[in-house]
């Protein structure tokens, strides 16, 4: 087994309908994880397209978005890759949303306003899965 020297060379798909937030988060992630690549999508449909093209290691997604919700997108992605890793970042913390996403499965469910320490921790949790 070849040991990967560049452990930071992983890809993230960030799906968030607020462009400015999307840009800030991706900038911070690329600083926090030098060598990583972040793809940004403003809705579920674009996210799904980007997933098909880049097949990212981690998907960070909002739930409520125009055109296609994060939930619908995640369901589609799971059909493509059953072990896709989701980090949900949503304004909703009610049981309905949690239960719906539970069916698909996620690594972490972070309630907005987003705390970067929690996001980094969640990404670490995913990477343990990737490298392990």
């Amino acid at each position, binding site marked *: 087994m070849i040991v990967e020297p560049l452990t930071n060379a992983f890809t993230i798909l960030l799906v968030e309908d*607020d462009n*400015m*937030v999307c840009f*800030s*988060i991706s*900038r*911070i992630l690329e*600083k*926090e994880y030098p060598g990583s690549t972040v793809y940004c999508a403003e809705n579920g449909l674009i996210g799904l397209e980007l997933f098909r093209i880049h097949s990212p290691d981690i998907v960070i997604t909002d739930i*409520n978005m*125009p*055109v296609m919700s994060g939930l619908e997108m995640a369901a589609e992605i799971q059909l493509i890759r059953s072990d896709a890793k989701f980090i949900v970042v949503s*304004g*909703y913390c009610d049981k309905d949303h949690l239960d719906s996403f539970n069916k698909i499965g996620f690594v972490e469910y972070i309630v*907005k*306003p*987003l*705390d*970067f320490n929690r996001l980094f921790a969640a990404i670490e949790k995913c990477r343990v899965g990737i490298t392990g």
Partner: protein
Amino acid sequence: MNKSMVASAIGSEAPKVISPIRLLARILVVLFVAEAVIMFTLPLFFHTEIDPVANFADSVMLIIISAPFLWFLIARPLHTTAKEIERLNVNIAARAVELEMQNIELQETYQNLKVETAARHRAMEELRDKDQLLIQQGRMAAMGEMLGNIAHQWRQPLNVVGVKIQELGLSFRYGELTKELVDANVSKVMEILQHMSLTITVFQDFTMPEKEKGLFKLEQVISNTIQLVKESLIKAGISLTVNSVGDPQINGYSNEFSQVLMSIILNAKDAFMEQGTVNPQITVSTYSENGKSVVTITDNGGGIKEDIADKIFDPYFTTKELGKGTGIGLFLSKTIIEKNMGGRLSFRNVANGSEFRMEV
């Protein structure tokens, strides 16, 4: 009050008529005296002498002869006339009593009506108060419905503020904190905070009952209202367009007007959800027409079936499933526009949708 009392009260008893027999007797006595006087005085002028017995007999004869004539010529017709007058008088008195009775009845009816009118007036006032209370409650219900939306509407900007602030801290950690980044993030955060503060003001204005009518700009109220429902419309994928011609103004309660707009817009939203409308659109147009300010709200949600179209403004009429609609939204809207603002709220179906029209 009984009839006799009324009769005595108005003094309408038949006046006394002298009996004709007595009248005849009086005339005869006068005639006798006159004849006697003449017969006694004549000799004094003509210097003749008349026997007092003959004189007396003459007077008596005159009376005896003239009595039947007087009876037939004067007393009888008088007697008849007197009887007729008496009969008429009795009639008149009876009529007067009757009239008085009617008058009393009328007075009573008038008093009753006065009491009834006052009661009705009070009832109307109470009803208006109740309407007002209902409107206030309706607004509170709408607020409750929106509270969920507000929560989401606020999470988004709060999230942006959070990200922007953490970006500063993290950039410092990466040694990339520049003046430009600080300035950009601070101004962005301030902009968002201002916007959130404005949203609070709009909500607050909406919930507070307005004491006095005032002149308000339609365009402003429309944009404030849209501010309140924007989030739930975006979430539902509904596009909303506002067309404003001129700068129409209305004299009234702006938050009640806002409530009407909101009811109609949220109804349209529910219709879209129910119908599964593809590419749902709502258009709000405002303009002036014949000195009136007009607002129309049009949607492409399929319209309302003709058989229920005339019921939509009835209280407690709803097509929504149990627990979803209160059935008073449009009823209150009509009350607000027509009773409180003296305008008109009407509905009609247009090409594949419905149109609500407000004229004030």
